């Protein structure tokens, strides 16, 4: 498994953000992380990226524990936050240069050129990052993320910034990298854009897993129970009865 989450808990002081979640993402799998605001999606992704320290539990990236072997784990990882902040006074190309140096890449220029072309950023190659719109910033962050061909990709709300063509390219890139063996987690509120992309779904609510499983299996189960639900309808049904807020020390 490329991504393993075991009994992950995260508390912020006395507030419980995530309480005891478990899941795995295999190479080639695209996991859709769903949940209303405050469900614990970003906390989970940031903990997997090594930015947050888990209160309890084990998080593995490509077999490496993100807490005990952070450098090895991060070398196999790409994390793109929901509102990527870039180095304002560096050009787009300089961002790629830095990423190539950080991940010790050789012969990266061709791939970077290709990435710029696919993300429609060729004419911005030497522009400063401060001149980019939010959608372009997101595209560049995604391009930087894919440059080192990571084995695990974490994308937080990747479809909120780009234009329709950009969204299509993002989805193509996700599928291609999954096909190449990367394990991918995509968190998004745009369920309709999501539905044709993900292979597995995990619904979080108040820091707990409400439902997880392969999307086709889930649909099969629903069909057998006489329901023809879209992902959106399933999401609303699962989250319409919110659980009470949990405090530290309470059982999930």
């Amino acid at each position, binding site marked *: 498994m490329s991504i393993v989450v075991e009994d992950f808990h995260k508390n912020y002081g006395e507030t419980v953000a995530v309480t005891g979640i478990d899941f795995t993402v295999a190479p080639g799998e695209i996991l859709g992380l769903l949940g209303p605001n405050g469900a614990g999606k970003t906390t989970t992704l940031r903990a997997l990226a090594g930015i947050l320290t888990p209160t309890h539990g084990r998080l593995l990236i490509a077999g490496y524990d993100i807490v005990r072997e952070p*450098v090895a784990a991060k070398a196999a990882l790409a994390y793109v936050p929901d509102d990527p902040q870039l180095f304002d006074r560096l050009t787009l190309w300089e961002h790629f240069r830095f990423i190539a140096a950080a991940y010790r890449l050789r012969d990266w220029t061709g791939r970077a050129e290709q990435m710029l072309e696919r993300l429609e950023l060729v004419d911005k190659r030497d522009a400063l990052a401060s001149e980019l719109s939010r959608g372009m910033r997101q595209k560049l962050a995604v391009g930087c993320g894919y440059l080192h061909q990571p084995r695990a990709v974490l994308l937080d709300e990747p479809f909120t910034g780009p234009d329709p063509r950009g969204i299509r390219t993002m989805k193509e890139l996700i599928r291609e990298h999954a096909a190449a063996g990367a394990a991918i987690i995509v968190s998004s509120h745009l369920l309709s854009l999501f539905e044709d992309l993900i292979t597995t779904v995990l619904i979080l609510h108040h820091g707990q897993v409400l439902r997880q499983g392969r999307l086709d299996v889930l649909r099969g189960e629903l069909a057998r129970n006489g329901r023809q639900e879209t992902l959106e309808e399933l999401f609303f049904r699962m989250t319409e009865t919110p659980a009470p807020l949990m405090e530290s020390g309470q059982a999930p």
Partner: protein
Amino acid sequence: MNTALWLLIGLQMRGWLRYLLRSLRTLKGALLALVGLAVFVPWLLAVVLTPRPGDGVFGHGLRDAGPALLLLYCFMNVVFSSGERAIYFPPAEVNFLFPGPFSRRELLGYKIVSTLIIGLPTALFMSLMLRGYSSWFVASFAGMLLIVLFMQLFSMTINLLAISVGARLYTRGRKLTAALAVLLGAAVLLQVGGSPRQWQPEEMFNKLLDAPAWKNVSWPLRSFFDAVAAERLWPDLVQSAALGALVNLFLAGVIFALDAQYLEAAAAASARIYARMQRLRRGGMGSGEGLRRGGTARISLPMLPWLGGIGPIGWRQLTTAARGADRLLLLLVILGVALGAPMLATLRDEQENVLLVLAPVALWLTLFMTTLLPFDFRGDIDRLALLKTLPLPAWRLAIGQLLAPVLLMTTLQGIGLAVVAWTSPPSDWLLPACLVCAAYVPPINFLLFALDNLLFLLFPTRLMAATPGDFQALGRSVLFLAAKVTALGIVCGVAVIVGAVMYVASDESLLLAALAAWPVVVLSAAALVPLVAWAFTIFDVGRDTPV
């Protein structure tokens, strides 16, 4: 340190140079930079060419007083800082470096090197300022660089210790530090001997600095100041700088040895600091500072009457000001007391002149202090598009926008005036003079804030500190101040002429002269409303607004 992090430092320095040079390519940028240089170069020459002022701070040499001031800064940093501690990383570094293949120690190394590079201009500036206490510029610069680095490393060490031991233990540690400071003070006093009541402050300070306990505690810090004041390369500078470097290396060693799990605290604190900086970019000093941590509004103001749309616009700015300006008002009050009290004490014997002296000083201070109250168009730089969609004529919008800063400044000056009236001995002229001043305060404030807004709307810029070496920002400030002084000079000139005519015509009545000049100021202020409205109308919200 990872080679990629060295590359990043190099790329960022290149980016900074590119930023400075790029804006010089335009005519406007080049002219602003020229004006900035025209102010900076004479200042620099004056600093370099002025003869040495002689012996040191508070009657002591820098060698003696410097460690005391540095240690005081360090203690203040620990005792008076907020409970939560973290190392600040800009958002881009959090995004790219935290999930990147770098160890925590590598990132700390990167931070220390970045700090050292950022400290270079500070050290350069400080060594120029301290030139009088140093016989050799190189020594002064090396010493200042070591001091700047020490302050940063000290702060980092405390932050990482706080993260390592936890918030509760850290709070206890702070109390312990405060107690230790008190104990140290007591020990020094005991060693000095005698009764401190009998000493003069300067004598007491001298005795404290000579105490053996103080000398023992401060010896590691003394090396920094020995380096600043070194007269020869060998052995003075080399020995003291090496000792200072060892002190810094020790702190760096502690930082690396701790290897604290600082990423989470740093990411959270950095996000908050960045959000605060963004608020400052949008709303200037104090904006949003009055909100509690959870974002709950603390102060609510009643809605103002409609007044053709002026009321709600003014209410919004006043509410922002009320919620954001508590610390700012405190600062203004402290400034007022610090500057006003000694002046009042000096002028009490010359009661007839007190208002005549204070009024120009207050006017001059107001000229500079308008930037502290940007609760108008200047604080709304990211909301100008929204303001343009409101169904109001531009002139009413302009008045509404100017209402809050004018009211705030007028209130502050009104309090100052009341203090003057209250503390001065009663006389025939005092009440009329105070009333005349009170009548002049609102239109003059309106005039100054309207000028600020007019210049801002015509030449917009964000309210942020300038980057080191940014002579354009300096040039812009100089030009804006010159424009304000010129406009104010013209208005005051016309008012004085009108007043002088009335003074002669009314058989030398100062009161009538002041009353005759007042409409000139009011009309001038009013004449700026259509100009501000016009500048707001032609403001292009799509244009790139430089920081």
